[in-house]
């Protein structure tokens, strides 16, 4: 194996560059959903390598491996069919108009089912056993994007989430073959309509542009030929089916290779392209580290992926343990996604989500609801999360989670007076000490890195010479509303 690029070598503490709380918090922000004080203490103790190993130690499997008794029960939703056969029965013997009404009711039940899945998922993010697993599932959801916006079946979206969960840190080659058979994906990118007589190129194009190679690493002709290889790959509402008579059995030429290829064959050819490994490495780098790509680092990570026959874990381990990951230029520079913002707020304050329904509404206003990415590119992220209206929603949502007033939504303000008192963070312990010690403790807990000295002074001034529980809470609200809090 080639020598590792120096910046990809594992970080190890020195007297001038210690394994400190800032680094631990950075790891927990990026590779998890923000750390509680206990987790930070724990990782501080066990050191960087063991911390990454612990994060990566999760089972490669579906939801029942992590929460047997707690998967969303879609059968409890009124009007939601228990199986595809049940669903079909609802339509039998109905007139066109009646069928339309049935469809409308199904759509409503489907919306509820989708919501139940999203809420289940967010609960896993908040309190699940394997935060890096959830984070990777969320990453792949934005990578192999499928959106339920256009009334896509909740059942199929759940199935896809299980696929993402199973392969999140597994083998990328197997992963892309599984996703190419995933019913929700086949539906979303129109492979359902990809037939020998009328090829539909949508899946082939996005497969290469967004899922495996990146733009510029294939030709328009490759798209045509890959589309032909995927003809007849479809689903029957429940699972993958191969429609033999829709499949184009003639020879295709893909990346200069000729043969009677089917979908798996062209995926193998795509995986052989070096660009594929580099592209996947760049996507993971952007997600976990920074929008700034450092070419040798990304190439190094890509080679690692190829050398390991597309096993993801070794590459992710190297990335999260690397010197580059902890470089000062990469700490505190990522704008939190709305999901990251709300989940990490709940975790670092040690509070419960007061109302998942409202949280869903806030996420909508911030522009990110799980299962509902805006389009096949996923969420654009970075500075596009922030404008003058979303910034207020972000600040006000954090305040609400910390025990403040709920965000006003379209409905009547029933509970304006009903503040979220029981969910306030516990400040008793931190109230001990001088004003500056209290402020520093909360900055460390919430911002997790040093802040501008003048801003720190403003916070110290806010709690008074004799801090009270109330003045400390007010100071916490100020921290949650600072520009620094938008970053991790």
């Amino acid at each position, binding site marked *: 194996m080639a020598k590792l690029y120096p910046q990809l070598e594992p970080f190890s503490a020195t007297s001038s560059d210690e394994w400190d709380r800032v680094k631990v918090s950075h790891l927990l922000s990026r590779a998890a959903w923000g750390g509680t004080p206990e987790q930070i203490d724990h990782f501080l103790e066990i050191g960087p390598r063991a911390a990454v190993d612990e994060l990566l130690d999760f089972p490669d499997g579906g939801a029942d491996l992590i929460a047997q008794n707690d998967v969303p029960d879609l059968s409890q939703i009124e009007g939601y069919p228990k199986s595809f056969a049940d669903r079909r029965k609802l339509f039998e013997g109905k007139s066109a108009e009646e069928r339309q009404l049935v469809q409308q009711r199904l759509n409503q039940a489907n919306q509820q089912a989708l919501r139940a899945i999203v809420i289940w998922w967010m609960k896993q993010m908040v309190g699940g056993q394997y935060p890096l697993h959830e984070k990777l599932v969320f990453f792949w959801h934005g990578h192999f994007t499928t959106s339920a916006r256009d009334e896509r079946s909740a059942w199929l979206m759940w199935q896809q989430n299980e696929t993402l969960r199973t392969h999140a840190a597994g083998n990328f080659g197997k992963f892309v073959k599984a996703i190419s058979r995933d019913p929700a994906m086949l539906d979303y990118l129109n492979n359902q309509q990809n037939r020998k007589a009328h090829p539909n190129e949508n899946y082939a194009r996005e497969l290469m542009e967004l899922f495996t190679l990146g733009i510029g690493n294939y030709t328009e002709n490759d798209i045509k030929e890959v589309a032909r290889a995927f003809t007849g790959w479809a689903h029957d509402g429940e699972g993958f089916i191969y429609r033999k008579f829709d499949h184009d059995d003639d020879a295709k030429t893909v990346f200069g290779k000729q043969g009677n290829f089917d979908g798996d064959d062209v995926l193998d050819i795509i995986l052989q392209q070096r660009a594929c490994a580099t592209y996947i490495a760049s996507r993971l780098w952007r997600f976990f580290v920074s929008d700034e790509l450092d070419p040798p680092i990304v190439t190094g990570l890509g080679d690692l992926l190829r050398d390991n026959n597309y096993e993801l874990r070794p590459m992710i381990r190297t990335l999260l343990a690397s010197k580059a990951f902890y470089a000062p230029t990469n700490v505190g520079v990522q704008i939190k996604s709305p999901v990251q913002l709300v989940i990490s707020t709940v975790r670092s304050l040690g509070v419960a989500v007061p109302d998942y329904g409202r949280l869903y*509404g806030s996420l909508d206003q911030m522009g990110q609801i799980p299962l509902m990415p805006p389009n096949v590119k996923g969420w654009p992220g970075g*500075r596009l999360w922030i404008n003058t209206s979303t910034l207020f929603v972000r600040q006000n949502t954090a305040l609400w989670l910390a025990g*403040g007033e709920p965000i*006003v*939504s379209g409905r009547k303000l029933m509970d304006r007076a009903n503040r979220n008192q029981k969910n306030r963070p516990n400040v008793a312990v931190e109230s001990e000490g001088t004003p500056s010690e209290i402020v520093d403790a909360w900055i460390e807990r919430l911002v997790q890195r040093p802040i*501008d000295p*003048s801003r720190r002074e403003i916070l110290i001034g806010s709690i008074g010479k004799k801090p009270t529980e109330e003045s400390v809470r007010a100071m916490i609200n100020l921290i949650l*509303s600072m*520009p620094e809090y938008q970053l991790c």
Partner: protein
Amino acid sequence: MPTKAHGPRLKAYNRMTPSHTRRIFLQKGLTLVSAAVTVPMFIDSTVWALADPLDTKRTQQASGKDGKILVVVQMSGGNDGLNTVVPYADDAYYRARPGIGQAKDKLHKLNNYIGLHPNLAPLKAMYDDGMASVIQGVGYPNPNRSHFRSMDIWHTAQPEKETATSGWLGRYFDNTCEGQDPQEGVCIGGQAPLALKGEKTQPLSFERPENFRYNGPDKERYHDLNSSKGMDAQAQQNVKSGVATSKRPAIITPGSQLEFLTRTAMDAQVSSDKINKILNEYQTKNSYPNNEYGNGLRTIAAMIKGEMPTRVYYVSLGGFDTHANQGGRHDNLMRDFAQGVDAFWKDIKEQKNEQRVVMMCFSEFGRRVEQNASGGTDHGAAAPMFLFGPAIAKKAGIVGQHPSLTQLDNGDLKFAIDFRTVYASILENWLETPSKPILGQQFKTMPIFRT
């Protein structure tokens, strides 16, 4: 591209001398400037102090006073075009709709063939005043009957692209020169519509002005923490000079995420104070429907009066998916729709802003010609659009022919006017910008506007 009116300001951006700083800040602040602005710039605390957002005299000198405005009203769910603009002279209409057809004698007749729904009296009055245009039989090739997909097609104006990522109005903003007003559209409603999303710009949207402000306590310290006031002297020096002279951590440097966030937070506060002040002070005797749509139009009227430089406003009225027993429901929707349009235009006229505003109303599709067995109508295709405003040309009261009720496409009306020709006409002849870069091809414009 409307460079002419904006030329001097563009120059000011390029020449960042101190004397310009304050003025630019005022303009920027009041523009609801978006995250997309990448001009490396920061304003020191003196400027912040000068830029009193509550000083209305100063704000009136800000840009946007004469700019043209487009207000888009989206009728979500598929409005029944045939019961909105009724072809009363065609027996086929009454044959197809024995239960839900609109009685001839109650219609507001526009000519000897079509009449407006009985609850659209205010629209008839606007039509008589030459302030309304009914564009008939609008649609697009291979109509899609899914709400989602068809709405996307109307928003992106790219029916051929399955995975379009931006909307036509978003691309309009993308195509204006950087640093120019306007930077983005404003939607009054929960989620920003795809139509307003650009590749480079994101629209603003808020459901209520109460959401467009900081809701926490201690507003004074909040303000300090979210401005250059809460910045180390070194940091202030850094961002003023544009050079990072300190490598200390936590010091805000030019172009950094923290500078960007602080700048956006400052802009947000100025805009928020301004908008909330405008809305609190806004008084009108005209009554809007008491729903999101009505409140939205009222907010828009107030923002226009408050001389916000926003060029495009967006608001939706939902509930048009009338599959069953549509009679009463559709009647109510028509009443709300008309009441909102009426109150809005009365306000705009009282403000004397009517020459600056055009309103466009559309729905993702019309409905089946034949009523269904449940006393409703199913998803259809072509439908009429409305445009309002004194800018409507004299001869544009009724545009196009009413589609035939007997020569149908799978039971649906055939379109004769592609909606993108309407967009092209609005872009070129109202917003004064070339439409081709936005719509991807050159559509023939229609003489809808006065010249």
